[in-house]
């Protein structure tokens, strides 16, 4: 592809970033920690005046002392200890060379590790023997293969690592940034893992480290791989592909390389075009072998600029020939277990050049093919201490015994053939420990005793704890909350009771997509009163699963796991939860209150939607927490108190007081004659509206991309598919902001609602599939069924067969002088006109007046009008209340003759129709 300059410069820029990253020195550690790093301990208990018993108590769980020194259940309340990593498949995630190295010098290989050195005090020959045996044993659990990352993944991974919250606990990996104190060490991560195994680990750390000190950020495959790639940025991978480089004049297509003579041959790391010697007019044939782990279909992705093709076992799988910009073509192939030859031919005529070769298979996400290629048919050999590592069964057997006997199995779970390898060590129970200056607490390493390299403070506090635990006072929920927050380093992000919160040194790594939100948009919230604020269910959900309620906050709340932190919910609830808000009684129906709440949430009300998103719709200003999750998230009691003055609960929040100084700024809404009541009822109306969650009507002022039909001077008719009505619904919106839908299939007034009429976009964009609900509020769903029937007696049940079968016929509608439609239909020879028109009220209720006129050319006897059918009909002064919601008023004549009856599980209101000179008229008023 000929010169695409912008494209080139972008690549160049990326390359520059990549180079900069590669050249960046590792983090400058002021001083590598000389003691096991327990961040909660270092944060809270490292001071001289710290509570030694509490500090030591934290160490007992975090260093997992209790795995050997069992506590007496009756004498000590100890939290669940931090379990050591599960080693079932440790060989499949760590390099043997690293295992050998790490075991040989635990504290030097990973300064700050909480794993003790089990070989301290041994002579070097014994130590080497034991370490080698253990390494062979661990290597029986699997092996890892070298894999390459790519530069764009490194750039993305670097960004993720420094934004999502990794650096809340770990040291930032940035040029010139000093490691802050309390940084959980990472060790030589790229020597330990392979890119693939680190990706797997990052994707869900709880799998091998179930105790949740490294929480699960629930990253997707790509994000996990990006972060892993960042750690592998400097990793030199052994050459894994052969190449033959050609120069010539490529005009249109790939040439037959077998007729050409290569200018250069060799091996490269991956399908790497940097082996070229010029930028235009060259071709490369890459070849290598892939080791397919299982019979399956594999997909390959070949992208190039210009042409390329891919052969598997000598057969062409993908042809991406010709001169073109970078474009990817895919191909699939069923491959059997074993070794397969792969050849990629490539040429570049001129301009920009690129080549990407990727694959995906069962259990393997899309990744560079080079991650599984080798230059020869042989699998690559692992080297340890300069020698090729060959697994020795006898050594492995010895290692297994050591794993049991020297204490590894006391902390690490490792299953073989589904059997846990058991520890054969024994240690005194915690309560029975007497020599607190010896054993693990001894200053110098002792043969056969785990050596933790504890600091003096750690030693003395552990001593205090072991002594103090025996006589410790009854535990309190707040103390338990505090310990858990220290164990899980919650304090790295959150403060509670003035403890913890983001360190100065890490502060700049807490960022937001909404700079305008200030600290509120980037710093995780303090946890004071958190269980007063959040519902039990929501809080539990966050603790068990993590959360992403604040989409603007780039730091994520990861999953610590129910088994690890789930108990916090009850403890927090016990300490925090209050029920003291003034929650008002109200007279209006709920649906009416919700309509008012919706209005208040909208732009002409309190304007909540200016800063809060509403489901998928963006706010008009900043994009704060979604309103549709509020009622699930927040406790109603807290909501009422918070709304009075957000500053008292969240100092510094940008959330304004909607009812400043207890005053209603929107005075005409719920004006019940008492300001305190008005404010309380307005708050309650907003809450009731929010309670509908994602089903709540969309507040006015959001740009929904809808087509909102607005009757301004005359009614608008909308005949289409209305939710809840037959496909023959005829919706009418009136400028009076009341609306109805008449069902021309059953001749019933089906729905009435107020405020906005309808959003036509479902039917007027695209093909128009589906039924559309009313756009407005306070929807009352009236019973369907024919309005008139001839009954043998007033007790006879209302007929249910189709209106057509009962002799009904729809005749359409006429407009009156106000362009209001008067529906017309007939039943046999009776002609009926049905006028439903808006009516003004002096209360806050919406209202329609309905006048039905019947004309019969012959006498008509035994005809009834079913004025209502509802679950509940209450007789009130001058009318009836339906379902506690709608008030129906009949004219005086019919009130006298009306029959309220139970029929078919419903209460019905029937009116006998009497004709005078062939005419009858029925009037009723709906208020809701």
């Amino acid at each position, binding site marked *: 592809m000929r010169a695409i300059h912008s494209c080139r410069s972008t690549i160049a820029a990326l390359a520059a970033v990549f180079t900069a990253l590669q050249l960046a020195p590792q983090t400058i550690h002021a001083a590598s920690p000389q003691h096991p790093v327990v961040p909660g301990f270092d944060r809270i208990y490292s001071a001289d005046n710290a509570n030694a018993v509490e500090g030591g108590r934290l160490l007992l769980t975090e260093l997992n002392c209790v795995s050997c020194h069992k506590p007496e259940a009756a004498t000590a309340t100890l939290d669940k200890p931090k379990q050591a990593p599960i080693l079932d498949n440790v060989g499949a995630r760590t390099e043997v060379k690293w295992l050998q190295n790490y075991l040989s010098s635990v504290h030097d290989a990973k300064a700050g590790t909480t794993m003790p050195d089990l070989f301290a005090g041994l002579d070097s020959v014994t130590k080497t023997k034991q370490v080698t045996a253990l390494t062979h044993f661990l290597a029986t659990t699997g092996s890892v293969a070298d894999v390459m990352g790519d530069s764009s993944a490194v750039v993305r991974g670097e960004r993720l690592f420094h934004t999502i919250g990794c650096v809340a606990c770990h040291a930032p990996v940035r040029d010139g940034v000093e490691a802050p104190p309390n940084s959980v060490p990472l060790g030589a991560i790229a020597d330990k893992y392979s890119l693939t195994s680190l990706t797997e680990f990052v994707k869900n750390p709880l799998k091998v480290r179930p105790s949740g000190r490294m929480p699960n950020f629930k990253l997707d495959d790509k994000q996990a791989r990006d972060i892993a790639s960042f750690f592998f940025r400097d990793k030199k991978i052994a050459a894994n592909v052969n190449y033959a480089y050609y120069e010539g004049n490529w005009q249109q297509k790939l040439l037959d390389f077998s007729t050409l003579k290569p200018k250069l041959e060799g091996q490269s790391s991956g399908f790497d075009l940097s082996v070229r010697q010029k930028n235009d007019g060259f071709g490369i044939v890459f070849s290598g072998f892939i080791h397919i782990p299982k019979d399956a279909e594999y997909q390959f992705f070949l992208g190039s600029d210009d042409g390329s093709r891919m052969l598997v076992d000598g057969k062409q799988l993908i042809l991406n020939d010709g001169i073109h910009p970078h474009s990817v073509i895919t191909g699939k192939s069923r491959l059997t277990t074993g070794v397969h030859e792969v050849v990629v031919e490539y040429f570049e005529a001129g301009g920009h050049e690129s080549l990407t070769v990727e694959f995906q298979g069962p259990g393997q996400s899309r990744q560079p093919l080079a991650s599984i290629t080798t230059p020869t048919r042989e699998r690559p050999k692992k080297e340890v201490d300069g020698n090729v590592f060959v697994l020795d069964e006898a050594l492995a057997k010895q290692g297994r015994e050591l794993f049991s006997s020297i204490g590894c199995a006391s902390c690490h779970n490792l299953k073989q053939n589904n059997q846990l390898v058991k520890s054969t060590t024994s240690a005194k129970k915690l309560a029975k420990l007497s020599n607190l200056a010896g054993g693990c607490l001894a200053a110098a390493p002792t043969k056969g005793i785990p050596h933790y390299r504890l600091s003096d403070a750690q030693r003395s506090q552990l001593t205090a704890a072991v002594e103090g635990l025996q006589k410790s006072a009854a535990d309190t929920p707040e103390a338990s909350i505090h310990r858990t927050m220290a164990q899980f380093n919650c304090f790295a992000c959150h403060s509670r009771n003035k403890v913890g919160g983001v360190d100065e040194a890490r502060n700049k790594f807490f960022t937001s997509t909404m700079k305008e939100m200030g600290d509120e948009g980037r710093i995780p919230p303090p946890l004071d009163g958190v269980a007063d604020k959040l519902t039990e269910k929501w809080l539990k959900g966050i603790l068990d699963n993590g959360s992403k309620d604040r989409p603007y906050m780039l730091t994520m709340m990861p999953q610590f796991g129910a088994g690890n932190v789930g108990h916090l919910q009850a403890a927090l609830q016990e300490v925090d939860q209050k029920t003291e808000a003034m929650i008002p009684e109200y007279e209006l129906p709920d649906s009416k209150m919700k309509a008012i709440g919706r209005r208040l949430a909208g732009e002409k009300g309190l304007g909540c939607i200016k800063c809060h998103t509403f489901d998928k719709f963006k706010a008009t200003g900043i994009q704060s927490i979604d309103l549709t999750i509020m009622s699930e998230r927040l406790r109603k009691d807290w909501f009422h108190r918070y709304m009075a003055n957000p500053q008292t609960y969240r100092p510094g929040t940008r959330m304004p007081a909607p009812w400043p100084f207890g005053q209603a700024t929107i005075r005409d809404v719920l004006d019940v004659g008492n300001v305190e009541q008005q404010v309380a009822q307005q708050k309650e109306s907003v809450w009731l509206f929010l309670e509908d969650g994602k089903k709540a009507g969309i507040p006015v002022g959001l740009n929904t991309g809808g087509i909102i039909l607005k009757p301004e001077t005359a009614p*608008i*008719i*909308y*005949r*289409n*598919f209305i939710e809840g009505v037959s*496909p*023959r619904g005829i919706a009418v919106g009136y400028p009076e902001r009341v609306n109805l839908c008449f069902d*021309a299939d059953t001749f019933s007034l089906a729905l009435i609602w107020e405020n906005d009429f309808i959003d*036509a976009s479902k039917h*007027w*964009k*695209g*093909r*128009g*599939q*589906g*039924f559309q609900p009313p756009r407005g509020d306070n929807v009352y769903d009236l019973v369907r069924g024919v309005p008139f029937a001839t009954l043998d007696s007033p007790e006879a049940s209302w007929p249910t067969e189709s209106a*057509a079968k009962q002799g009904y*016929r*729809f*005749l*359409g*509608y*006429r*407009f009156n002088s106000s362009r209001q*439609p008067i529906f*017309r239909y007939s039943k046999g020879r009776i002609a009926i006109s049905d006028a439903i028109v808006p009516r003004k009220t002096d209360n806050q209720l919406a209202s329609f007046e309905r006048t039905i006129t019947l004309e019969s050319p012959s006498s008509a006897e035994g005809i009834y009008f079913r004025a209502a059918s509802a679950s509940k009909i209450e007789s009130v002064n001058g009318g009836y209340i339906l379902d506690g919601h709608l008030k129906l008023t009949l004219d005086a004549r019919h009130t006298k003759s009306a029959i309220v009856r139970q029929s078919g599980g419903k209460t019905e209101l029937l009116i006998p129709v009497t004709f005078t000179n062939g005419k009858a008229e029925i009037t009723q008023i709906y208020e809701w």
Partner: protein
Amino acid sequence: MTTHRFLLQTFSAVGILLSSFAVSVSAQDAPTENDYYQMDSFKLPEGLVLEIGGIEWFNDKLAISTRRGDIYTVENALAKTIGDAKLKPFAIGLHEVLGLTQKDGWLYATQRGEVSRLKDEDGDGTADIIETVCDKWGITGDYHEYAFGSKFDKDGNIWVVLCLTGSFNSNTPYRGWCVRVTPDGEMIPTCSGIRSPGGIGANYLGDIFYTDNQGPWNGTCSLKHLRPGSFQGHPGGNKWYDTTSVIGPKPVEPVSGSRMMVEQPKIPELVPPAIYFPYKKMGQSASGVACDVSGGKFGPFTNQIFVGDQTFSTVMRCNLEMVNGFYQGACFPFREGFGSGSLAVQFTSDGSMFVGGTNRGWGSRGRQPYALDRLRWTGKVPFEIHEMKAKPDGFELTFTQPVDREAAANVESYKLGTYAYIFQSAYGSPEVDHTTPTIDRVEVSDDGQAARLYVTGLQQGHVHELHCDGVKSKAGLSLLHKEAYYTLNFIPQAD
């Protein structure tokens, strides 16, 4: 006045025009469609969405109906120069009106669920009464259940073609049927076998045709004759035979994977498509149907049928003939470049053609979301194949202008190929069963306005695709459209 041996009765009316407006243009400066049929596009008011599904001349105005369910009237639609369209709402908020016709001061509208009639009683230009004429067919709420209504037939009926529920099923009565709505509002089930109509209209004799679209049991789009009692090929709606005795017993189900003309002899009710519109050659979504009965005001194609294509934003031209008791014939490209996806096609008595378009939900070559275009004959006669007719041993072509005899008589001036479509329950069909018949010789009529092609290897049941690249007019012009597609369901018998 020149005449030729194959002259048609209906053609003679424009004979004079033909000779007086013969165009002479050099090959380098090839004429375009617009030289003969000038397209004028209405400038529609800002913000008004007019996805046009029906057009009718009503109360001295052009009435147009939309998919959104509105009916507007356009003043001065016939004015020589189109200015901004002066639109007035006649009725708002109906349910997707895809058919307009009028009688006695009432405008009849076919909505999705009913035929209604509307009247402006107080003369203010808007309807005061909307009266349901017939709502006896079912709708379920599926978007696919379109209803296209015809003009009145000679008995005062409106024919309504009802799309299936989706492409395969009929979930409520008479989906997948054509019904007739009588003047007193009764509904007569008339034909079954319909899939997804795009328009309905009569030929000059008053027989009703509709377009159906590529999909199940429709290898490609086509023009079909709605003979009462007929089965149009898609059995999806055949269960409703159980509910009506009007058109006889349920036909035998066709065998999927067969060919139309293999199945047709086994199913007496099956009327094969009169004209196939080969997919992606002529179009992809056949739509409105209108017949030119202006008696020459629209040029030389009097009594021919014009059919829209929504995807291609075109109008195609068709000539029909009766062979073996069934309509069949040829289609030709006619005019491209309509503003949006052509849906409604309507002639007015002055010889103007109005085309209303929309591309909502289905894309079109015309880039506008909706459009109203007017097509008028400029008075110049294009050099076109006027008709293509089947003969026992070949085809007969007539032309709108005398041909260069030597070129027209040369078999090398033509290229003929044939193919069929699979008649199947699966969606659409590729072209199959290709053959290449031999054109043995060509005889040109004495007047040079007709050519008789003698062909060995005609294929019954195949589309015969003819390219006439070598044919030139006497004046040296190539054909404006060189290709023709004849649907040879039946090969006529020799007299």
